[in-house]
């Protein structure tokens, strides 16, 4: 290894380390963490929006060929929503635009993320994993009023 190579390897490792530290800070310090394993959560058979309190909701989002249940929900601005996703049949996915809600819907598995909707507007949620012939028509809406 000559001097240039050693410098290059040092620079590459430093760059990667800086990226990694920023990632850990965003996850643990800013709360942008990934869904994790919830051994106690049970997959549900029915999708529904449950109000837990003022501006507090739980959304049990059931994915199935080829729609979301519920397909459309309305909540007031400033609401915090605990989103649980599972699937009734094959693998699906859900991405709520302009948020960090990006979860897989896998049968037998529960994926979870908490999100707060501050800005009123329509947030489309699309199925982003191929789930059969009508996959492209599988979408829903979260309306924040």
């Amino acid at each position, binding site marked *: *290894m*000559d001097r240039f190579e050693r410098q290059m390897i040092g620079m590459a490792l430093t760059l*990667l380390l800086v990226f990694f530290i920023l990632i850990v800070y965003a996850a643990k310090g800013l709360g942008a963490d990934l869904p994790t394993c919830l051994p106690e959560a049970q997959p549900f058979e029915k999708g529904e929006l449950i109000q837990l309190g003022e501006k507090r909701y739980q959304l049990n989002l059931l994915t199935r060929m080829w729609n979301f249940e519920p397909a459309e929900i309305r909540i007031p601005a400033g609401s915090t929503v605990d989103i649980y996703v599972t699937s009734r*049949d094959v*693998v699906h996915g859900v991405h709520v635009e302009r948020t960090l809600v990006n979860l897989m819907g896998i049968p037998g*598995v529960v994926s979870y993320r908490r999100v707060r909707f501050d800005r009123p507007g329509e947030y*489309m949620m699309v199925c982003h994993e*191929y789930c059969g012939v009508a996959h*492209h*028509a599988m979408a829903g809406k979260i309306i924040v009023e």
Partner: protein
Amino acid sequence: MPVPRAIRFILLSEIVFPFVLLILGVLLGLFQVLARAGILRTDRLLGIEYYQGLTLHGVINAIVFTTLFIVAFSNAVVMFQLRRPLRLPVQWASWVLMIGGTLLAAYAMLTGKATVLYTFYPPLTAHWTFYVGLVLVVVGSLLPFFLDWLPSFLAWRRENPGERIPLAVMGTFVTFFLWFVMVIPVAIEILFILLPVSLGWVETHNPLLARTLFWFFGHPLVYFWLLPSYIMLYTMLPRLVGGKLYSDPAARLAFLLFLVFSVPVGLHHQYTEGGLTAGWKLWHALLTFMVALPSFITAFTVAASMEYGARQRGGQGLFGWWAKLPYFSKEGDQWLFAYFAAGLILFLFGGITGIVNASYNLNLVVHNTSFIAGHFHTTVGGLVTLSFLGMSLYMIAKLRGTEVQLKGLALWAPYLWMIGFVLFEIAMSIAGFQGVPRRTNMGLSYTDPQSPFYRPDWLVNMHITALGGVIAVLGFVLYVISFFATLLARPVREPMVEFPMSEALHDARVPLLHNFRPWVTAMVVLIVFSYWAPLYDSTVRGIKAGSPAYNERFPVPIRQLQTEAPR
């Protein structure tokens, strides 16, 4: 080095057969980009349904074309470098398994019995011929390594005691050892989870475990594609630009780092699923950053080798030497440089977007959006495809004894491909930030003004991807013309296998880089440590129920369809 007729046939057909399929795969890609932009609003083209075509596009381009070419190329490299003939029975067995397996899987896909995309996630279940076909391709691809190249290498070492294993052979062995290790989890997935359900022997299976095993294989798979390109960049590119490989030990170190870090990184494809503990996802993120290191080393060594070559050609200044590289040279074999140059430029985009994908929480923004598809069309669809196409043309000319025909077309092809995919990649990335999904026939929903889901704000980027796709396919058409003209031209030389092998500028012998044992040990330890917990999550903690098999057309399990359908 002259080649016997039978071996010539095997090598040529391992290049030409998947290439003919690739033409279909590329045309289906064009269909997809036009359908996604809403320019074609249809669920099928020429009798091939959109998702059926998407399955063919993935399986042909990313599995069949790559695997068969890699076997042909590696066969030729090992034969040329060790100066030993290939073993005909092994080669025929490998040929029959790979071609037969491809035909079996092609039958399943073309008859619509395997519309499951190339990741074949259950509970969507394909006809058994699809899975068996893929297994045969993989088994066939491993035979030459174990039964031909390794015995030849051992014999070579006995005859050449103390001599270093040639760099290209070392890289090939790393590639195929890695390939052998990574196919173990996917073989378990196919043989013990997917096939029994597909054949109706068992009722239910575990889709989370299947995904974990798939990505245990699926990420190292990209290094199986990439390493042959790196072998070309290290051992042939320097010679093409009139220079030398900057550092032989750095090249060997890069291959060994790939060996250690390629496999235990699969969880970065599963960041967004529940059922797996987030801490282990972070660990896999760290290891994914480590596997970026050998690519940084490669970027440096390849750039340094090109700079050395360019300065030999009279290149001056800090950046002025860039202008001295043979971008459009038709002299001798230098046309091949265009494929590497265009591929490397695309790979810049691929490397940067890859680090974004790997970045744990940043992945929440891009996961399963068009950003991902943009990324891998500049890696496997960029450097890998371009270097494989360039090398295919080079090899058929040598193996047939012809001159490369229509060199002008062959020279423009990679640059058009590059321009097309730079446009495609940028538009797909921006669209991904907007939330455009991948793997979706958007012409029937998001880009259709008649649809309740119509998104006019997504249209501009989708139209740019369509333009990029058209330009890339134009480049491909130029290539196809030159390919067949070269294949069918009148031979003017003795047919042979030959590669433009480079010397090394820095050529120190580092003993640690010639002893595989510590590196393989580190690899195994890291794999076991990184996967025991995710496998435990996938089988015990994270999964609550088994799933029956489904067909993509019906929202009820296949078993129920069969009992309810009138006979």
